[in-house]
């Protein structure tokens, strides 16, 4: 690294600006890549071709075209909508997603801010988007979005608990809440925590699916019942915020799952110094594996009714997570 660059970055404000710029660039990029992957993979799963014409041979520019389309769409706000709430709802949802990027360790020292309460911060921030969704549901002055918003509130809060409890297992094993610390604990323990924490990993993935309200936990945006749930009245770039937030959220939650359970930017055989450069690539492949699983689930399963959904959360996931914590704690004490 040339000299003037390091002391340029050492100045706090410039590095903050750079990091913000980087995150602001990553969100649309990641959202588009995952969105495009979903379109193409779902098409293949249904023996179709998928987007083909945008951008020449195999339609890579489809999502850029979508983005432009959404931007030039008329930004409609329903007449008797609650205007301020209607306008800030998408921003809140996007902030909930962007804030998650801060704690994800892409490499040994490639992290925006290594908080020592990393995990706690991540889960708290991700529940911010729940408020955004509820605001969207309430403010659209449309019966269907109101029902969608209330369903989202019930679902996201019900699945917040298993999400948090599932994480406690690997926090006990690592002994620290900072994500960087958890990855180092896995490096030094020699195996990714999923080997012991497979129950926690399963619960975390199911709860993550519910947080994203993706099929099979699709009640808030149940296309066949509530037209588009809380998104019914949104159009133009506000819908784009929700659209990107969903895909970016898929990335961040999978990144956190990979960091907590699959050993983040580390692979068992990789030596220390190579991690400096190979780290982000390893993490991104793990994330794409998890994202592929989410896409795969989405195009195979129908959706639960919300009373079944709540029963799964309260009757199955929460007790299972508690049991997992007890067992991990016992193992930690005995070993």
């Amino acid at each position, binding site marked *: 690294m040339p000299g003037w660059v390091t002391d340029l970055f050492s100045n706090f404000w410039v590095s903050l600006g750079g990091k913000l710029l980087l995150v602001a660039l990553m969100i649309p990029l990641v959202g588009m890549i995952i969105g495009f992957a979903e379109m193409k993979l*779902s098409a293949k*799963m*249904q*023996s*179709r071709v998928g987007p083909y014409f945008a951008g020449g041979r195999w339609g890579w520019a489809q999502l850029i075209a979508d983005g432009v389309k959404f931007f030039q769409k008329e930004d409609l706000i329903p007449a008797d909508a609650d205007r301020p709430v209607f306008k800030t709802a998408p921003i809140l949802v996007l902030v909930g997603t962007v804030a998650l990027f801060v704690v994800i360790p892409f490499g040994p020292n490639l992290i925006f801010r290594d908080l020592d309460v990393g995990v706690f911060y991540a889960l708290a921030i991700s529940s911010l988007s729940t408020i955004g969704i509820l605001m969207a549901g309430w403010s659209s002055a449309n*019966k269907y979005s109101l*029902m969608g918003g209330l369903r989202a509130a019930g679902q996201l809060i019900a699945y917040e608990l298993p999400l948090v409890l599932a994480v406690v297992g690997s926090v006990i094993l690592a002994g620290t809440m900072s994500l960087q610390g958890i990855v180092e604990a896995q490096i030094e323990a020699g195996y990714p925590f999923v080997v012991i924490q497979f129950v926690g990993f399963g619960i975390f993935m199911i709860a993550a699916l519910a947080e994203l309200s993706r*099929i*099979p936990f*699709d*009640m808030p945006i*149940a*296309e*066949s*019942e509530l*037209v588009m749930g809380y998104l019914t009245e949104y159009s133009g770039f506000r819908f784009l915020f929700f659209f990107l937030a969903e895909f970016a959220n898929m990335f961040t939650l999978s990144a956190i799952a990979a960091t907590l359970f699959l050993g983040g930017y580390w692979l068992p055989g990789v030596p220390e110094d190579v991690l400096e450069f190979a780290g982000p690539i390893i993490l991104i492949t793990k994330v794409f594996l998890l994202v592929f699983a989410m896409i795969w689930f989405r*195009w*195979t*399963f*129908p*959706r*639960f*009714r*919300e*009373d*079944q959904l709540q029963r799964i959360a309260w009757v199955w996931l929460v007790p299972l997570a508690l049991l997992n914590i007890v067992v991990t704690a016992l193992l930690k004490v005995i070993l």
Partner: protein
Amino acid sequence: MTLDSETIRHLSEASVSVELQTEDMTLNIGPQHPSTHGVLRLVARVDGERCFDVHPVIGYMHRGYEKLSEVRTYPQITTIVNRIDWVSGYCNEIPFIVAAEKLMGLEVPERAQYIRLILTEMQRIASHLVFMASYPLELGAATPLFFALRERERVLDLLESVTGGRFHPNFNRIGGVKPAYASGSTTRKLPQDLPAGFLQDSRDAMDKVREAADELEDLVAGNEIILARTKGVGVLPPEVAVAYGVSGPNLRASGVAFDLRKTENYLPYDRFDFDVVTAENGDCWDRWYVRLQEIRESVKIVQQAIDSIPSGDLQAKVPKVIKVPKGETYVRAENPKGEMGYYLVSDGGQGPYRLKIRSASFSNISILRWILEGILVPDIIAVMGSLDFVLGDVDR
């Protein structure tokens, strides 16, 4: 104010005894809604997710067929009649044509009857495949839609190769079947028959449809989430079904083995062996499963019909301007949606004096008010989807 133990106890009891005052919201599952199969409007009184009573409003698609048919000639009616239940276009024409032929005392040649039977069963497969596509979509699974529609393309291509049309074949004439060629001096002498290779293509298509049925069964039938969403939902007891006149797969799913193909003689069904599929408890899952089995039965019928199709000409001797002698008759047939019948009153003119069209979906959804009492909103969509109705059939 500090909460002493007295008020706390009172509050806890109060919250138990006080019934939460919520007035219910009238939700318009309106004429324009993703899963009402057309322009049906349900005015539902909903408290939270539970809906108290549902008042279906129909008539948005009423085209007045019965009045139209009083000013049409018989060939013109066969072309508008297949637009009643547009998902199974070909099957709508059969009872009307058989009724007219019965009044005229016409003997339809064997080959024409076999071709009619093959095309009816193919149309039944296509109609059930549309159900196989749209019902899982209502429950949220998008992939079965593409599997079912991909197979339906095969069947529709076969239909188009014979009749020229995919949805509205217009291949039936009074007295037999005939492709739409001009009747001038040269084209009249052209021999008219099935296109070359049709029988072989149908055999291959039927094998592929059978494979697709198994694939759909793997993808949808065993899926625990679908079982959770459909088992025991929207149970229709046989006596209520029969009182409302529900017919077809919905009735057979409630355990009543009543199939018009076995009792009526509008087409030579008695020459083929197929069994009437029934199920026990008449819930959404059984209605789905009865239709899947019926696809397999239809495949069996088509294969038997193809192997034993006689040769011969396609149409009986019919005058150019058709006048049906005076008389009244009611002919009913097993449409993919249920019993479709025509009460034809003719007065010897070029068109009928009165034509009563009994369509299956009209009675099938007259039970909506009874069956949708007090269930959750997502179940309304699941139950309505399982009845498999088409709004053209309801509103005529």
